[in-house]
């Protein structure tokens, strides 16, 4: 019987395992040094805030794994031998494999800031980071968060829930404006301020200072301001975790290099999820996708390939979503932070400042390219269809109702949005 070994029990590794089991009888082993069972990484914040217990972040009950004959192994890999096809763990256990999946996820970025390894300085990615945060956040009178991405704002929300004041250093002019157009970035920045975050825009970290006890005492900005704090959250993004692959002869660049079938340079060895760097056949730029959704989609495609039905990973129309405190965000298709050549956008914002909609379209043909929406829920299938079918801006605005996914009785904004468009014409 063939043996599939998967390194990493995150969404990518586990999706691969489950989907392979649906199609095949092969022996499946999943190895993780993080947790015994699969859990939802995205839910760690809710454990810290007391919305959930860690138990509840596990999408499957513990009986699910033996029932589906997916063997879960807890341990740290010390050796990957692609020549003789085995992996060895720290405790000496050895697993021979016929096929191997590297799904080792990400690590927190660090930019060689002085003091970045002090006690009380940490990122937020893993289960262990959450445990560390429980310790590090005890008795803290102020925390400084560095790096204005999605994890940074989640960390801010988490700490606020424990009544810890937060200073949030963001390099950009507005929060997340390297991804979002100015108006949206401004809308979130306002929302962040409303929640009592001390948001410092256009501010870089210079160094982190230790106190007499050896723990962090203050963060210093490049403007020279010293902000007293006992906790520093480093959230300037993540990079692929390729330590293992590097040592084993698997080709790596920023991530583990794979083609669009998620195959590495070594036959029978695959990589997927956050740690994979996908090189497109058409010579387009290599890409690393670090989302929950893409990890799942890659796992689904990879499972087919492993089971003999070689399948190209095609993610379809891009989508993503997030929540910034109370503000829900969805995006479909392509919306860049600066307007691109040949594209225009329609932007509507509710006077309350809590909702907005941006439709990006080709200036000439008026075909829809992308959607950004805050504070209104849209239906994914409809948005994708419009983008795929290249519907015109006018068509989309007139049929916006069909895409609404807000709960029943919610106020509807389609008439206002359409009115604004007509006035602008």
């Amino acid at each position, binding site marked *: 019987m063939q043996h599939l070994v998967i390194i990493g029990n995150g*969404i990518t590794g586990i999706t691969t395992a489950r*989907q392979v089991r649906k199609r095949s009888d092969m022996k499946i082993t999943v190895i993780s040094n993080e*947790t*015994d*069972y699969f859990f*939802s990484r*995205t*839910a760690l914040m*809710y454990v*810290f*805030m*007391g*919305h*959930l*217990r*860690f138990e*509840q*972040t*596990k*999408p499957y*009950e*513990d009986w699910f794994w033996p029932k589906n004959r997916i063997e879960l192994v807890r341990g740290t890999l010390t050796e990957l031998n692609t020549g003789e096809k085995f992996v060895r763990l720290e405790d000496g256990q050895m697993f021979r494999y016929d096929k191997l999946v590297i799904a080792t996820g990400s690590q927190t970025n660090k930019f060689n800031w002085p003091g970045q390894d002090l006690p009380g300085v940490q990122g937020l990615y893993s*289960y262990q980071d959450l*445990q560390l945060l*429980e*310790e590090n956040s*005890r008795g803290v009178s102020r925390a400084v968060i560095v790096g204005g991405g999605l994890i940074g704002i989640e960390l801010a929300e988490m700490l606020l*829930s*424990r*009544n810890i004041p937060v200073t949030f250093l963001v390099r950009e002019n507005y929060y997340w404006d390297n991804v979002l157009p100015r108006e949206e970035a401004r809308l979130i920045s306002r929302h962040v301020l*409303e929640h009592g975050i001390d948001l410092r825009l256009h501010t870089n970290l210079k160094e982190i200072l230790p106190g007499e006890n050896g723990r962090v005492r203050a963060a210093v900005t490049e403007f020279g301001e010293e902000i007293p704090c006992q906790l520093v959250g480093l959230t300037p993004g993540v990079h692929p975790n390729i330590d293992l692959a590097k040592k084993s002869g698997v080709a790596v660049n920023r991530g583990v290099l794979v083609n669009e079938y998620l195959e590495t340079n070594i036959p029978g060895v695959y990589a997927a999820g956050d740690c994979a760097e996908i090189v497109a056949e058409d010579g387009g730029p290599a890409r690393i996708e670090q989302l*929950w*959704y893409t990890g799942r*989609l890659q796992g*689904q*495609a990879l499972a*087919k390939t492993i089971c003999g039905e070689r*399948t190209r990973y*095609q993610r*379809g129309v891009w*989508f993503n*979503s*997030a*929540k910034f*405190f*109370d503000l*829900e965000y*969805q995006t479909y298709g392509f919306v860049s932070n600066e307007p691109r050549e040949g594209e225009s956008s329609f932007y509507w914002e509710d006077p309350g400042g809590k909702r907005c909609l941006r439709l990006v379209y080709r200036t000439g043909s008026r075909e829809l390219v992308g959607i950004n929406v805050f504070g209104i*829920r*849209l*239906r*994914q*299938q409809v948005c*994708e269809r419009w983008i795929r079918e290249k519907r015109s801006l006018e068509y989309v605005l007139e049929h916006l109702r069909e895409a609404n*996914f807000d*709960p*029943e*009785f*919610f*106020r509807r904004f389609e008439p206002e949005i359409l009115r604004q468009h007509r006035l602008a014409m």
Partner: protein
Amino acid sequence: MQTFQPAALLAPHSSHGGKPLRRIQKTGLAIFAAGLLMLAVSLTGAGHSRPLLFFLLSIGLATAGALIYILPQVKEDPPGIRNNHIFFRGMTARGAPAWLTAAILTGFYVLLYWFPQTLYPWVRLTDPLSNLLSGRPADHWFLYGTFYTLAVLVMGVRMLIRYRHNRYQLIRTLSVMFFQLGFAYLIPAFLKALNQPEFYFSYFWPLKYDYLFPNDVKRLLAQPGGLGVFMVFWGAAMSFIAVPVLTYFFGKRWYCSWVCGCGGLAETLGDPYRHLSDKSLKAWKIERYLIHGVLVFVVLTTALLWINSAGEGRFFGSLSGAFACWYGFLIGAMFSGVIGVGFYPLMGSRVWCRFGCPLAAILGIVQKYFSRFRITTNGGQCISCGNCSTYCEMGIDVRWYAQRGQNIIRASCVGCGVCAAVCPRGVLKLENAAPGERYNVTLEDSLLK
């Protein structure tokens, strides 16, 4: 699995509390406590000679205190989902305060059902109110109704504040408050004032099982004037016409989370405990045996009673009566009252509705097989965080479906809409639409072909 829990769990509500209480909230709590104290004092019979004064000093103060505590929460945080610290607090995470509350609630139900005379000092306090509404002195059921209605109204206000950003929750909460106050409290009292039989238009067989038992039907039909006949007609029409028709169009939510008094209490007083329901597959199996078992029990009891009644007692003698008695004791009192409400702080707010209510069983069968209602999943957006499953008071593992991109169609879903409200990615939506597409293709096989 490692048993890591946030340190605070070991010592609930000490190491890192929520926001400190504002002075006005502390005042509210003090007034609430004073009211409860007076209520305890009243049990000695102290309020016998001045019932109105003692009513105001006990139940009145407790109500006012609770509202003073709750209302300032409007200004506490911006509108949004606020489930912070729910699993840290003893009261909402099965700590000592929860056990104490459960003991008090359970104790109250035991006294109410089997030792009502012990509650008479409290019953006397409600005499003035009862006289006002129905023109006659109170009994222990009036006392119970008063407590029940106040709980729904006060905790309803809490629910309105908590979900002030969500119109579905606002309207739904106002609806259960309205039906409890009007249909389950005031109208029955007014009927008594008019010398008509006490009747709850918002409850029907088989939840209110005796409404279709021969004795009740005969008693109502024998009433002078047409109202008794109308009540029998109403009860039968609701049970046999409204239940299938309305459930076809809206799902069982039209009743369970919008009208029903049991549901009303669960959605208001029980809201702080909704996350305590058991989500395991095992619990689901037990649920299906139990709830359908109760349904069979009540249908059998009703049938036996009617057959026996038609034969004027020749067929079963006292057997069918004994059946009815046991049903009343085991299901009516023990299950729906003592366990159903008493165990709120330990097992969540819908134990009765999920495991016991025979009307919910019927509504559930209709909802599952003949309804337009479903919870739609928004494509592939689920991040498997587990908020939906955790906050499902009916113990449905909503995430199981959502992460597969599958619509949720479950007999037990009461359509409270909280899963959709707590979802951080806007994945869930309660909808009524053509039944044909309810069971959709799963994400697993559809997105990647």
